[in-house]
């Protein structure tokens, strides 16, 4: 079966998740047969698209025009769905990013396809793709099969390996999908990106602070540790609700569900909502004064002590190790 892999770019740069999506499409196609068609949408993206050849794309398509330089839910969904039809794709893969989650439901409706969102595993069983996806913010996992002819999946970033590029540059084919004014009923006017920070949803390392930080001013030490480790700052709901940290940093149910390689929970006791959102992290470190805090139940490594003593010491020790 042919698989269409939507490879997301922003500012003419392919996202890490784009490589994950193309590689996953390749892994599936190796088992089911069929082609992997990678699709890049934007303005003048033909050059950057070539890189996808190193991740297993058998065909690379670029749909480009100036107006597509800014994301539009309606226009992007149309391009993806039309391409899927043209290429007779039975499976459409997108990353479960802000963009992928926004376009996938529209693509599914256009293709009369079932949708499995935010999948953390795809396996092939007897020619069928079985998707595993967290529900109840990760308190349970569901295995589902899409029964419609066309199937749409979005993949949680940072979970599926992108692997190394083989170095093969693919040949990029320019394709025109006619779009008119009505296809741009909604469009992005401007994008503001916080500079120098990593988003919790994409970070490989997260340092999160909880109520035990006692006040917003003390998050400086969390930020410093996150910076040294090249990671993102996260926060518990209590901290966000108190207005100490912005909502986009919130980890847990009603915040973000994350699976980084390293999650350091600082002065977070570990409510059921918080644990649901981060317990699938590969390694969890807990630092808390209370030895009975639930967070220690799921932590790989724990230090029972005052965060204010420990966090700066970890920063210092990591700096030494990393030669920073």
């Amino acid at each position, binding site marked *: 079966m042919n698989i269409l892999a939507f490879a997301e770019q922003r500012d003419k740069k392919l996202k890490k998740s784009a490589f994950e999506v193309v590689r996953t499409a390749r892994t599936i196609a190796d088992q089911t047969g069929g082609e992997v068609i990678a699709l890049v949408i934007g303005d003048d993206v033909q050059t950057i698209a070539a890189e996808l050849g190193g991740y297993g794309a058998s065909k690379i398509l670029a749909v480009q025009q100036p107006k597509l330089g800014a994301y539009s839910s309606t226009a992007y969904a149309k391009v993806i769905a039309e391409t899927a039809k043209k290429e007779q794709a039975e499976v459409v893969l997108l990353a479960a990013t802000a963009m992928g989650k926004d376009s996938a439901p529209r693509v599914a409706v256009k293709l009369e396809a079932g949708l499995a969102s935010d999948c953390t595993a795809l396996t092939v069983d007897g020619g069928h793709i079985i998707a595993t996806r967290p529900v109840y913010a990760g308190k349970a996992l569901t*295995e589902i099969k899409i029964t419609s002819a066309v199937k749409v999946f979005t993949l949680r970033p940072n979970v599926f390996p992108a692997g190394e590029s083989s170095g093969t540059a693919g040949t990029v084919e320019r394709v025109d999908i006619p779009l008119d004014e009505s296809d741009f009923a909604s469009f992005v006017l*401007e*994008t503001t990106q916080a500079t120098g920070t990593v988003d919790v949803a994409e970070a490989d390392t997260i340092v999160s602070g909880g109520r035990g930080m006692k006040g917003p001013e003390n998050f400086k030490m969390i930020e410093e540790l996150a910076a040294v*480790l090249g990671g993102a700052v996260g926060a518990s709901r209590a901290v966000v609700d108190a207005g100490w940290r912005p909502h986009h940093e919130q980890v847990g149910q009603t915040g973000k569900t994350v699976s980084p390689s390293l999650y350091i929970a600082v002065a977070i006791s570990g409510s059921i909502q918080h644990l649901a959102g981060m317990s699938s992290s590969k390694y969890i470190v807990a630092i808390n004064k209370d030895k009975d805090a639930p967070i220690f139940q799921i932590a790989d*490594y*724990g*230090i029972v002590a005052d965060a204010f003593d420990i966090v700066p*010491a970890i920063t210092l*020790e990591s700096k030494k190790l990393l030669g920073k």
Partner: protein
Amino acid sequence: MKLAVCINHVPDTAAKITLAADGKSIDKNGITFVLNPYDEYAIEECLRLKEKNTGEVIAISLGGDSHKETLRKALAMGVDKAILLKDDTPRDSFAVARALADELKTISADVIFFGKQSVDSDDAAVGIMVAEMLGLPSVSVAVKLDIENGLATAEREIEGGKEKVQTKLPAVFTAQKGLNEPRYPSLKGIMSAKSKPIEEKVPAPSSVKTEVLALRKPPSKNAGKIIGTDVSAVPELVRLLHEEAKVI
């Protein structure tokens, strides 16, 4: 301005999830169901738009009789009218969206709101699917909304930043935490909600496109080791993270 808000009745986020005997669903015994947290922001935004522009807010929920409780909460917050699309057969996002879209077609609202996702299935798909089915533009995960002369400017959260999106009305929006501070129902609101009618309708059946094969608990993590109880444990922690876990 005609405003519609689609709301869901879901397990409280504090609920422990246990599995039912069928191995495909959750055991609902002992679980408190509440108005989906993100839908509170959606309701609040509709109420604010109504207060600013005059109009009517209609709340719609698809589900069994238990969803009346959540519709009553919406009424208590100040929603004018509540509709229960009574159907408790299992539906996936596509089938839920189909039933809601059919109903919304008859309402012709200027603004249709959803929470950004239901905290049960976490699919984050129904609102946008409805927009597509109705041929409307949408802005998902909205944290800010301004409506001026039939044109909406909204901000949505993206990785590490925000996108400012412009859209014509009618349009669909899905609400993210941070959009507003939802009001608590007043005592007067709660009292009057009790006597307001909830209109019941039966949606047309819609076929599902997904099949749940299994539901299971995530692999449980065992508590690891406590490395120490003071700052002297730090070098060992960093060593373990570097050499054993290989994450720094």
